[in-house]
């Protein structure tokens, strides 16, 4: 503690769990926007990651509310947010934005995209997996060309709705912080936009990591065109994200309001490592420079010619650095916003616990959990191109297949 803080500010109210929450939602929004690149904007190179990105988004979305629930003083009362939402409250909209995104966007898109495969898998398999796949079809087993083209059209429309929804999901998280006028570190109209672009950065980087690691684990070759394109998009997103953050920074510095003194003190002392070193130097500038040099981002060819193996290693390293950087951004927003007193006269400290509900281990568990869920999802809904079931020829003109799944 240094200077004067209001006596009630002795305790920090939003802990590491609230850092995990925007980090995870950011990954969801980012992964979804990457998936929509293929579907809406027809970027064919990233096609191998399309289904993987959707499943990643779903796995992380399922975990997103958990840190918030664990953080509540009364988790069992959380249903009240659906019963009596206060329409004035940014946070009250969480339940609705979340439900909309989960039910209407992500699950529907995955369902329409996988339905044909689900039906065919159910026909070909035996035992438990067959019944799981059949249950997931909801009994809609029509594989007529008309039904399949309906799937295709709906998938496209949902993606088109999904892009603004993903923007809403994460922009809204930014708004939760950006609209707190009592807190000069948070209160900024740019906050939702900065959150959004950092979300895109983190989502692309995450899918890049998962794609490369999963290919390695499955002993499959990595599609170099695909990762080159991902790296290029990662670079573009980072440039936009970094420009927005710099704009916010310069704007604050130039306006130099009442709070500037205490905020500069905070950056120079409490946030030096997490903001200057981790967020800006290691998490943004270093990967941006390496990606800019190695990925075919600025022209059709990379600025530096490198063998594919080395390039993959650099992409993977950069993507991991980006994750560290984005986590630091969330940390600096959430924790940083509580390290200075609202009296603007002093700084406090955050003591991170190791154990306990709000401790480091709980946060780590919540960050590992999506990968476990993703593993299960991949088992049920394999996203790999070779797993895609081929439509039997007979089906093409036989029309609808309904009722119980016919045996092979």
């Amino acid at each position, binding site marked *: 503690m240094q*200077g*004067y*803080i*209001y*006596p*009630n*500010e*002795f*305790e920090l*109210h*939003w802990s590491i769990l609230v850092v995990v929450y925007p980090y995870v939602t950011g990954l969801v929004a980012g992964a979804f926007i990457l998936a929509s690149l293929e579907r809406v904007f027809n970027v064919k190179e990233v096609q191998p990651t399309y289904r993987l990105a959707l499943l990643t988004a779903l796995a992380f979305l399922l975990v997103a509310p958990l840190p*918030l629930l664990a*953080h*509540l*003083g*009364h*988790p069992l*009362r*959380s249903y*009240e*947010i659906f*019963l*009596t*939402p*206060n329409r*004035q*409250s*940014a*946070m*009250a909209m*969480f339940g609705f934005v979340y439900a909309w995104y989960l039910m209407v966007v992500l699950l529907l898109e995955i369902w329409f995209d996988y339905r044909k495969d689900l039906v065919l898998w159910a026909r070909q398999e035996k035992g438990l997996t067959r019944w799981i796949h059949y249950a997931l079809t909801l009994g809609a087993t029509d594989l007529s060309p008309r039904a399949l083209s309906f799937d295709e059209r709906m998938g496209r429309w949902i993606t088109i709705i999904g892009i603004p929804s993903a923007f809403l999901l994460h922009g809204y998280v930014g708004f*939760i912080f950006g609209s*707190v*006028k*009592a*807190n000069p570190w948070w209160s900024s109209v740019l906050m939702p936009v900065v959150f959004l672009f950092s979300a895109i950065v983190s989502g692309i980087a995450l899918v890049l990591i998962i794609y490369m690691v999963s290919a390695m684990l499955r002993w499959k070759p990595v599609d170099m065109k695909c990762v080159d394109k991902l790296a290029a998009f990662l670079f573009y997103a980072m440039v936009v994200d970094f420009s927005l953050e710099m704009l916010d920074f310069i704007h604050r510095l130039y306006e130099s309001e009442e709070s500037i003194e205490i905020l500069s003190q905070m950056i120079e002392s409490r946030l030096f490592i997490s903001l200057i070193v981790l967020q800006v130097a290691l998490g943004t500038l270093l990967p941006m420079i390496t990606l800019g040099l190695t990925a075919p981002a600025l022209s059709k060819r990379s600025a530096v010619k490198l063998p594919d193996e080395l390039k993959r290693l650099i992409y993977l390293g950069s993507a991991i650095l980006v994750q560290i950087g984005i986590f630091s951004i969330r940390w600096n927003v959430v924790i940083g*916003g*509580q390290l200075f*007193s*609202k*009296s*603007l*006269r002093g700084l406090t400290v955050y003591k991170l616990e190791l154990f306990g509900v709000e401790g480091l281990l709980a946060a780590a568990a919540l960050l590992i959990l999506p990968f476990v869920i993703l593993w299960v999802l991949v088992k049920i809904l394999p996203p790999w191109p070779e797993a895609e079931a081929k439509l039997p020829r007979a089906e093409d003109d036989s029309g609808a297949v309904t009722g119980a799944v016919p045996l092979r």
Partner: protein
Amino acid sequence: MNPSERDPAREESTRPTQEVDRREFLKACSLLAPIILGVVRVPLLNAQESEGDDYDPSEHFYAMGIDVDKCIGCGQCVVACGTENDVPDEPYFFNTWVERYLIRTDGEVEVDSPNGGMEGFPPTTAEGDIRRSFFVPKLCNHCANPPCVQVCPVGATFKTEDGVVLVDDEYCIGCRYCIQACPYGARWLDPEKHVAAKCTFCYHRIVEGLVPACVEVCPTGARIFGEVERRATPLARFMRFNEVQVLKPHLNTEPKAYYANLDGEVR
């Protein structure tokens, strides 16, 4: 009963004044009953008219005035508030607290509030170097435009018709968004109930026509509680004869804690 035969333990706690009081009480009851009844009806400095059982919130609109020039930093308000509202002793949280400002001759500002001022303040260092110094009591401002109520996701904190911002202990989910949204640091999380807690203007007292505990015990009249919209109240007089300010007016929270003689360094 002979005084010398009395229980020594009782003896110790019994002081002459009490004996006088008891006698006075009997005398007063027998001889001065009409006068007592008369005096009871005379409104005291900060007291309001008793409303009895039929309390109607629409007839009231409460606020508090604070005369910085009268605060002596004794901390009695902090103690009384803690007692009256069962504020936990450890760790320390405060519905109200007192800040001490020391503005040095070079313009440097030092602020402190050890334990919210509950146990008073340690002696000042380098006394000759002080340009000015004063105490400022702080509490929930019961804003007319409260950001804490705006952000509550479930409607567990609310503004009553008589102008008091309260928390519903049985409905609060403990998300702490309201604590983040309060610009004045007036809210805290109850470590036992796990819900947001704050100053209630002693709502259970004011509906009975009493004043909040902090106002009841303030020895110098630095806190003036009352109705804003009536002409004949101590608060109305306070606001007539002082230039009043509110804290952080640029945030447009429209606070209802009105400060007289407030220094510009206070925030």
